[in-house]
């Protein structure tokens, strides 16, 4: 199931980052900033 593969990848990514001491909120904030940076905003 492709949808599950995607969610699996998302959660594994979060789990690794949170275990390294990063908060969920700061991960999402960083993702927002990354997107803004890429689109040049």
């Amino acid at each position, binding site marked *: *199931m*492709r*949808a*599950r*593969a*995607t*969610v*699996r*990848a*998302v*959660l*594994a*990514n*979060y*789990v*690794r980052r*949170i*275990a*390294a001491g990063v*908060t*969920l*909120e700061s991960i*999402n*904030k960083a*993702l*927002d900033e*990354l*997107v803004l940076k*890429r689109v040049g905003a």
Partner: protein
Amino acid sequence: MLDDSITISAFSPEEKTRLWQDFLVDFGLANIFTYESANHCLVITELSGRPVPSTPEPLLHIARLAISALRLVHEGEVYAGPTFGELLPPRIMKPTFPDVPYELQLQRGPFAARYVLKDTDTDSVLTIFHALRNCLSEHKAGPLSLALRRFNLSYGREAPDDQIIDLAIALDASLLADADRDLAYKLLVRGSALLAGIPEVKEHSVTLAALILHGTSSCMEARVSQISNRRTSSRLIQRCY
């Protein structure tokens, strides 16, 4: 070996036979699981030197972490909850193998592909298991508790729609945990940004977003319509239960 007390090991043919015979004798599970489905065993020999716990909770917590780790590494289903629950009280006092106080049979779930654990998976399973241990305390819900719970629940759903709802809630609880507006947009861009470096799922991030936003069946379309109209994501779907 997950740590100094927990191991995932393959059954030898003799162990498999003995374990299966015990199941038949003790619980009569022959009609529930096939013989071939049991090919790995999660062995908990001791909990960090502590004595046998009076409640199953520490064991169940470790079992949940181990199964979640296996599911997060690659596709396929491992499943041990009901078996573990059935077996726990007698098995604590009466181990199947003389040198193994506890064991969990990892089985194929009823609705998913068989899980094949390879030697090359060892590092990934270890990494995720220890990361999960850091993220999820036995007594306190972590930031990813809901997401992981719904991800795990999706394995037990038969209908694709139900699976999608669980997976959507898992995404909501992670990618949209701190968002209260522009949910569809944030789901798409955050998901794509997070998965951008993973080639095998790069196209899936768009697929899933499209799946959730546009729906794949009449059942989902009704819910998706609510999502679009009311600016909510799967939180709304959750209320439909």
